[in-house]
């Protein structure tokens, strides 16, 4: 039996059971034919690949009764090792997005999309293609896709070849082609290398938001945490150069605020200092290097960049002495007109300090290197505009949104007689499509993706399609064969389905990777494991230091005003995340703004403009203008204005539509050697007089001496580490006898030093625990429902603060203030040390939340859980995502973190089956499971040898608001601060 059919059956029966009202007679539907491996009520896990960005993390999808209820990182996958970022966690809301295209649509003469049958739609397309082939006009067919580094990409290339189409354009808005170009220049290798953060002792980043979106953030976060954490007395150092205090900058030990567009100068100055002081690695071609950098004046650069010469010298020494260090650069925010020169300088820096081959590894090259260049995209646009394209297929790319408006891609689309979109979410590009053939969601599809050389993740349908979508591969094969009038099994497109093609491709992989193994066994194993991976040796490269075209500046010549820093959003990436309400509702890590978009304006400039937070500001560049509410920043460089990319959709479903503005409208279309120049325009700001207050759940970033997020100096931390663990019972005295825990006492430790503020746990928690999304107004009014929040606290001078991220959730206090005040025992303490909240017992007095010093309890102000209510938070088909192990809360009850009680019960159940006690690893809370830096440890505090127990005795351990005597079950570990860069 085909797996697809079986899922269809289970899926249908669950849907029927779910829509049944609780009080009316309810139907229960048995399976007609039972599947081999699935028991209703028991979760099955299917591995796949996350396609929310090209990092290609492995995921496992938890299938309950035929529907996917949770995504988790694949623990075996070498990229993410079991963890996921915020966007990966939210991938499910793409699958169950209520605005998904439900079936093929064809636009009629009036321009309105009308549903058509699949056969009709395919036939229509095939006939158009056949007509072109007949006239030998195959060149008039173009395919525009996202980066597809696996079989689908190859199939589309084969398809294009068979039809004589143009070369496929694999468009990624952020393709980091400056890095690639610089690799070509310096190392003669057209590739983006693999950066080994974990092996570096000092990381110097030029604007690279490697913890947020750059290349492979989950892998980098893990590497960063390993590099940075204090272990055995050693701790790496991180230095970040950027005009804006990004999340990555906030995690650096030293944030250097430079004048926008001076990264190249700084890199050159660093090289100069290294060479002058003779700190270069042995074997470096000094003369060539000297020639490449010329004779820069460090003093002048210091003045120009606003970075003191002393700092430059100190950073240069730190990097050179790191052995190895790592210099990275090239987030979108530093992609100016001179981007390639910046990257060349950074490559040279790595070369000069001996990092190439150690922390900068060619060989396991990133898939980003395979994306088409911006120039290719522009060329295609130009062809379209000139009417050279008859049929354009757009597969998972949204260029109308992600290309600068100046490229006029939308106008070019209008010149194409037939635009076919395979988007399964209605977006700005599919708005212009004549035919929409919705592709399956990646979690419903077969496929594979190779994020870097040596790693191929395998995707399989983890559930039956939610709607009537078809796999783009299947459609292309079918349509191509119809157009070529060839039969199945024959011709260039002989495969019956894309699945067949995929398997054929994998036979090739099998031959290469496991020559001895029978293919079926290899295939099963790959499906189970989620792909194949093997080590790829580092390729030695030879540097050829060449002179940079140093006359180029970052921004457009002669322009005045603050520089636009537009950067990919941690939550929305290039905008594809904006249709996911979880991501919209998660506050931005740094500004804590939810739902909206904003322009971060330096406080000085805001004062001049007389702009307050939330005032609408018109932001104009020579290329366009947008309006956004102001976010006043003390820390942003006075010559910059920062705007995140990702919002401003005009058509991307209800959650994304008309929210904020798209800053790409401000950019010029002119290509540069480094692709699109994101940092190239200067702005004019005017106050419009309008207001749109931002939804910021965090009232203040000032801890007001309350020591919620604590820190300790590195030297002191080392000393403490040497002194060893603290005794467990250093708590406040009590009048009462101590509580007894017969079997377990659950507890948690959270390492504030490891927490990077990425919010992945927030979404994991939301997904696991059926936490409703409440909308901007409610978030702004302190009624957000997050059980877990990441707080951003700042200390020190406001223009250059130290940032502390503090994950705050129910502390499961032993002496819980919330418990005795509840009149009905809805809040009580379990014998396993959990602070329990019984939803169905709650009468809603809200006394508990008043009395909770941490305010981590969440009240259902509206009826989020009932379909009849106007505030229902789960429009169809989002209810399919709801975790069946967790009650959806009713109106008027309090809820909060349960430490994933359903997982605790499950873990205990499994242990009992095996006749043993629960040990480490049996139970992972959702937040712990997804944390890329593994800052969270959950476990049994009663067992002194459990990991949570051991970590909680760390000398860095403390309890938040300890002086209240609540005795929390969560121990935080103080952040270890470096004196580095402190004056």
């Amino acid at each position, binding site marked *: 039996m085909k797996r697809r059919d079986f899922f269809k059956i289970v899926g249908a029966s669950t849907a029927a059971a779910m829509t049944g009202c609780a009080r009316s007679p309810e139907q229960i539907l048995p399976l007609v034919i039972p599947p081999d491996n699935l028991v209703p009520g028991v979760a099955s896990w299917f591995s796949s690949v996350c396609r929310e960005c090209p990092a290609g993390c492995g995921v496992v999808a938890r299938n309950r009764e035929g529907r996917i209820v949770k995504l988790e990182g694949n623990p075996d996958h070498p990229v993410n090792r079991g963890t996921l970022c915020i966007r990966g966690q939210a991938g499910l809301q793409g699958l169950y997005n209520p605005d998904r295209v439900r079936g093929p649509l064809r636009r009629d003469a009036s321009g309105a999309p009308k549903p058509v049958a699949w056969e009709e739609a395919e036939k229509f397309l095939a006939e158009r293609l056949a007509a072109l082939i007949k006239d030998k006009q195959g060149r008039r067919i173009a395919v525009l896709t996202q980066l597809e580094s696996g079989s689908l990409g190859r199939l589309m290339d084969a398809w294009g070849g068979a039809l004589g189409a143009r070369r496929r354009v694999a468009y990624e808005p952020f393709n980091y082609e400056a890095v690639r170009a610089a690799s070509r220049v310096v190392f003669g290798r057209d590739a983006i290398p693999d950066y080994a953060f974990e092996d570096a002792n000092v990381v110097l980043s030029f604007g690279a938001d490697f913890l947020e979106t750059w290349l492979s953030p989950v892998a980098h976060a893990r590497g960063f945490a390993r590099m940075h954490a204090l272990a055995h007395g050693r701790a790496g150092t991180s230095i970040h150069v950027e005009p804006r205090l990004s999340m990555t900058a906030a995690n650096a030990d030293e944030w250097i605020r430079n004048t926008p567009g001076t990264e190249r100068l700084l890199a050159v100055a660093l090289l100069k200092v290294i060479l002058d002081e003779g700190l270069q690695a042995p074997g470096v071609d000094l003369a060539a290097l000297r020639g490449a950098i010329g004779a820069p004046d460090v003093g002048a650069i210091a003045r120009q960049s606003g970075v003191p010469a002393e700092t430059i010298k100190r950073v240069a020494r730190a990097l050179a002495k790191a052995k190895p260090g790592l210099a990275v650069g090239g987030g979108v925010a530093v992609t100016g007109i001179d981007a390639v020169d910046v990257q060349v300088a950074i490559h040279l820096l790595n070369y000069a300090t001996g990092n190439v081959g150690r922390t900068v590894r060619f060989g396991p090259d990133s898939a980003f290197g395979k994306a088409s260049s911006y120039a290719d995209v522009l060329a295609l646009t130009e062809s379209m505009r000139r009417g050279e394209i008859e049929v354009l297929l757009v597969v998972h790319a949204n260029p109308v949104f992600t290309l600068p408006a100046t490229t006029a891609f939308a106008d070019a689309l209008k010149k194409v007689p037939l635009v076919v979109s395979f988007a399964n979410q209605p977006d700005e590009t599919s708005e212009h499509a004549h035919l929409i053939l919705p592709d399956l969601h990646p979690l419903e599809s077969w496929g594979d993706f190779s994020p870097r050389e040596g790693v191929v993740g395998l995707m399989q349908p983890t559930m039956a399609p939610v709607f009537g979508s078809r796999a783009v591969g299947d459609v292309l094969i079918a349509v191509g064969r119809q157009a070529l009038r060839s039969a199945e099994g024959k011709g260039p497109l002989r495969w019956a389905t894309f699945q067949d093609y995929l398997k054929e491709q994998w036979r090739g992989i099998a031959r290469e990777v496991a020559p001895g193994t029978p293919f079926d066994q290899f295939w099963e194993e790959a499906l189970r494991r989620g792909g194949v991976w093997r080590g790829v040796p580092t390729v030695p490269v030879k540097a050829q230091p060449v002179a940079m075209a140093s006359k180029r500046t970052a921004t457009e010549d002669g322009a005045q005003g603050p520089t636009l820093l537009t950067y990919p959003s941690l939550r929305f990436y290039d905008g594809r995340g904006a249709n996911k309400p979880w991501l919209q509702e998660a506050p931005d890590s740094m500004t804590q703004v939810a739902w909206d978009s904003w322009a971060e304006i330096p406080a000085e400039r805001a004062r001049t403009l007389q702009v307050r937070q939330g005032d609408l500001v018109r932001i104009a560049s020579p290329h366009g203008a947008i309006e956004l509410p102001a976010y006043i920043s003390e820390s942003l460089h006075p010559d910059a204005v920062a705007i995140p990319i990702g919002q401003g959709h005009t058509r991307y479903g209800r959650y994304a539509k008309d929210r904020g503005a798209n800053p790409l409208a401000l950019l010029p279309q002119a290509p540069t050697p480094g692709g699109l120049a994101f940092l190239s325009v200067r702005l004019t700001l005017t106050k419009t007089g309008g207001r749109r207050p931002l939804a910021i759940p965090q009232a203040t970033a000032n801890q007001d001496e309350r020591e919620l997020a604590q820190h300790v100096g590195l030297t002191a931390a080392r000393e403490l580490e040497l002194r060893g663990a603290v005794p467990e019972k250093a708590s406040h005295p009590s009048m009462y006898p101590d509580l007894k825990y017969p079997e377990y006492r659950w507890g948690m430790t959270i390492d504030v030093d490891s927490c990077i503020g990425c919010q992945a746990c927030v979404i994991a928690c939301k997904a696991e625990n059926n936490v409703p999304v409440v909308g901007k107004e409610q978030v702004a009014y302190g009624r957000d429902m997050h059980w877990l929040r990441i707080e951003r606290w700042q200390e020190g001078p406001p223009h250059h603060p130290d940032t502390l991220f503090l994950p705050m959730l129910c502390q499961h206090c032993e002496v819980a203030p919330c418990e005795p005040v509840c009149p009905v025992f809805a809040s009580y303490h379990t014998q396993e040390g959990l602070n329990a909240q019984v939803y*169905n017992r709650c009468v809603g007095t809200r006394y508990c939340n008043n009395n909770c010093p941490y305010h981590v309890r969440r009240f259902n102000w509206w009826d989020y859980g009932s379909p009849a209510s106007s505030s229902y938070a789960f429009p169809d088909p989002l209810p399919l995502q709801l975790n069946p192990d967790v009650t959806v809360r009713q109106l008027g009850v309090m809820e909060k973190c349960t430490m994933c009680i359903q997982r605790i019960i499950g873990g205990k159940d499994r242990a*009992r089956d095996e006749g043993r006690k629960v040990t480490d690893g049996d139970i992972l809370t959702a937040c712990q499971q997804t944390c890329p830096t593994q800052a969270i440890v959950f476990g049994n505090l009663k067992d002194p040898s459990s990991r949570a127990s051991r970590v909680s005795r760390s000398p860095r351990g403390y309890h938040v608001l300890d002086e209240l005597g609540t005795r929390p079950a969560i121990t935080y570990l103080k952040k270890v601060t470096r004196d580095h860069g402190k004056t």
Partner: protein
Amino acid sequence: MRRQVGVGVATLALFAAILSLAHSAGAQPAAPAQPIAFSHQIHAGQYKINCQYCHADARRSEYAGLPSVSRCMGCHKITAADRPEIQKLAAFFNEKKPIPWVRVFKVPEYVHFPHKPHVRAEVTCQTCHGPVETMAVVGATTGQNLTNDLLNLLGLARSSTPLTMGWCVECHTTMNATKQTKAPLECVVCHH
């Protein structure tokens, strides 16, 4: 005098109303009409088929599970294939349609009742579902509200297996006291 008679009549009427309410509540609840007239009495009573032969998920899942149509057909391809009710079953199987059984036993949506640990603890199915093997049709009234509370207060229990919380708790307490089991008494074990 007339007034006193009136008061007496009113009191009697009230009492009768309460009694009849209690009686109707305590009576065997009506069984819903099922798409196929399946009899547990025949299968579990007469032929002594083990409950878990059909409800096979009970030992490994939260849900007891219903037999798949193919499992029914495993026997009924031959057994009693000529009966009209069995022909209905065959029709479902041939059309590859699930049988729309009407649910009888239900706890509220905020209650998680897992079958597996109960089976593991060797609790018989009859403990909660009543003597199903004697029932040609199965009906149950479950749930809890203020009326039930008041009836309970008057000592007018509704059904031998009411699936109410107090009933669950009582069994857990008794078992722990008498059989040294570790049946949990934490609220959040069921309500989470």
